[in-house]
């Protein structure tokens, strides 16, 4: 890192004085570039220290298929997005095979995902998901491919269960392409690949258990608070259950207040604002506080 900083500092030095010195500076920069060790990406870290520590390689290993198994809201998507963001920090490309068509790009961008480098694939037919993921992973053009096999909330039918040949194809594609293949699946796991089981354990947090791994560490589990995945979720502190009825009379559209809030879906008008509670809600909170007192 220090070498990189030196290099950056060297690059920002003004190239003044004699032309010979400019050539010398360029030579020096080329020499440093050639001397610097190649940075090979071996793992994609989630940024959640406890989860990274749970994995034998210290993160999701490239060239392998890893399954994130769990219920609908157990943190699978957040972990996958964090792995994608880690790849994007290295300027690598990622792909998301979005089976249920539920990935929400604004939230992904907030987690550090570079939307320009994320290819979203939405196959028209469910049986095309695995094929698309195999093609993407095998190409080697993507550092991380996420295959979302969940059904989506309210969808009818049984959850997709991968057959053994399909699982082998996926693992083989990840190995050939050299990228990470992440599967987010419900409670119907695929066989034969590293598996993490995630579980929502009430408001106190969520748990991750390494169910299967060839590198060891199987059976280890951690329970972490929700704030590690969603710092602003606000449920760890018990939440604030409002008296909706108190504000119901005031719950009609109030465009003047909307303008005061100056918020556009979390991004803010020109990116400068954060959501503020409208006055009606603030009054409701005041009433609640008064009752508590």
């Amino acid at each position: 890192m220090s070498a990189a900083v030196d290099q950056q500092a060297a690059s920002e030095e003004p190239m003044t004085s004699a032309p010979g010195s400019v050539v010398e500076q360029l030579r020096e920069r080329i020499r440093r570039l050639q001397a610097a060790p190649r940075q090979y990406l071996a793992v994609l870290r989630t940024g959640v220290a406890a989860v990274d520590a749970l994995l034998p390689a210290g993160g999701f290993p490239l060239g392998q298929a890893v399954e994130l198994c769990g219920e609908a809201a157990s943190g699978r998507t957040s972990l996958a997005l964090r792995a994608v963001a880690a790849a994007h920090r290295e300027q690598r490309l990622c792909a998301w095979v979005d089976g249920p068509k539920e990935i929400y790009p604004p939230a992904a961008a907030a987690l550090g995902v570079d939307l320009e480098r994320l290819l979203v694939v939405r196959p028209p037919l469910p049986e095309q998901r695995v094929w698309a993921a195999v093609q993407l992973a095998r190409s080697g053009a993507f550092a991380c491919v996420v295959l979302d096999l969940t059904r989506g909330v309210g969808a009818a039918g049984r959850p997709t269960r991968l057959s053994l040949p399909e699982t082998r194809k996926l693992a083989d594609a990840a190995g050939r392409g050299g990228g990470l293949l992440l599967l987010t699946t419900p409670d119907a796991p695929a066989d034969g690949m590293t598996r993490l089981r995630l579980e929502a354990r009430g408001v106190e947090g969520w748990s991750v258990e390494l169910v299967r791994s060839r590198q060891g560490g199987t059976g280890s589990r951690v329970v972490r608070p929700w704030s590690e995945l969603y710092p602003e979720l606000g449920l760890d502190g018990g939440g604030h259950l409002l008296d909706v009825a108190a504000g119901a009379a005031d719950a009609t559209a109030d465009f003047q207040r909307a303008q005061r809030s100056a918020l556009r879906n979390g991004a803010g008008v020109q990116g400068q604002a954060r959501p503020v509670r409208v006055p009606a809600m603030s009054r409701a909170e005041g009433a609640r506080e008064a009752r508590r007192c």
Partner: protein
Amino acid sequence: MRRGYLHLVRFPVQRKVVESPELAGRPFVLVEEARGQRRVAFASTSALRAGARPGLTLTAACALEPALGNFPYRPEAETAALAALGEALLGLSPGFQLSAPEGLWFDASAAHLVGGEEALGSRVLEVCAEQGYRGHVAVASESFTARALARHGARRVEVVAEGQSGRALSPLSLSALESREAEAFSALGLSTLGQVAALPPAAVTARGGAAGARIQARCRGADDTPFVPAVLEEVLEERVVLDGPVESFEPLQFALKTLLDRLGARLSGRGWAAVKLTFLLKLDPSGCLELPLTLARPTARAKLLLDLARHRLSELRVEHPVVEVAARVDEHGEDSGQQLSLGEVPEGDAALEVVLSRLVTTLGDESLFSSALEAAFRPEAAHLPRRFQPPEARRGLGMDLGRPVESALGRDPVAWERPPRLLAQPACLEAELSSSGGMQAAWLNGRRHGVTMMEGPERLDGEWWSEAAFSRDYYRVFFEGLGPAWVFRDARDGRYYLQGLFD
């Protein structure tokens, strides 16, 4: 002005061999219709050896060589191919002038950029060789000198210094004049251009008139013929007419290679990169099939374009045989090249383009996209799909080692409040409300989920000017057996809806 001449010996024959490699070494002729007769316009080397000269009737040529193949000669197609070659040279020369059907002049005034006129000539021949053509180049200050030396000179690359044209031309035979006036000089017993140049100018003018004087001036190295650069076509399109209707992909591949080699060279010459291409297949007896191809990263590399074309067309099923194939560049960008580190090869982009092409072919163009954020209050309208065109990774001297790339939004804490999963359609919840109106539980898919915690609300409303006006109070709710979710209460009907999951 310094100018060069590129002479491609029997260019139409060379082009035919490039298009149909199986013709190499075989006797064949290109035939044109003249006064109701089919006469040889160009002949391959084997055919020439057999005696099939240009101007012979096809019948006479076939009598000389029974195994002689014949193909129609299309002057327009040859001129277009020559112009395409001229465009490919634009990376070395600012302009070119056609001299159909076997050569072209090019502007050599920028030769110092490639290491001199000798090096320019070699580079021009290299570009030709990449496309399968062999030729000769001469650089001089006059059009005639350059052309005559390229066509009749002995060296592959000839450079004539300023003022030395007469001396360079003097050993050439009178056939280099390529005009009827040469016969008059031959009748006088002259055999070289040097001898013509040595004649007294007044006598030549008296006998030969203005034409004779002009020819003698050229032989002395004086030629004021202007250089008129060709006007480039607005639309880049290449076309190959197949010898016969084809029903399989195999013969089409050869045509595609030729087509895309030329297209890639033309793109490179102009400094362009293709963003969107359309392949046109003309069917027999009628009909045309158009196949668009959009690239994630603009490119002018013929090999990559051919790979993509193979993927696009290999599994295509057409009802009728194909008689003509064409490729048109519908959208182009500037070819900024690719900065690679030492020892790297641009295989990554090729793999990306190939897999994208394969997916588009199978899943459809609309199934692949990247997203762009939109400034909108309505959560489901806060992003839009757009074409996947990832930026190039900065490498080499331009990159900043070790410095992580932050996303456009960075880590804005506000945006953490959005769920990573948003339902395509908000799901209506059958909510159990307390006496005060608070939600105690909700039914979803026939299951009851108790509310453990609830945070909010955050009001989002807007679009009051349209039919789709909305006003929602959003809550972050923890449901038993489901997990944290994003729920809103619609002010229009007072009902609760599940819109997202904090998965």
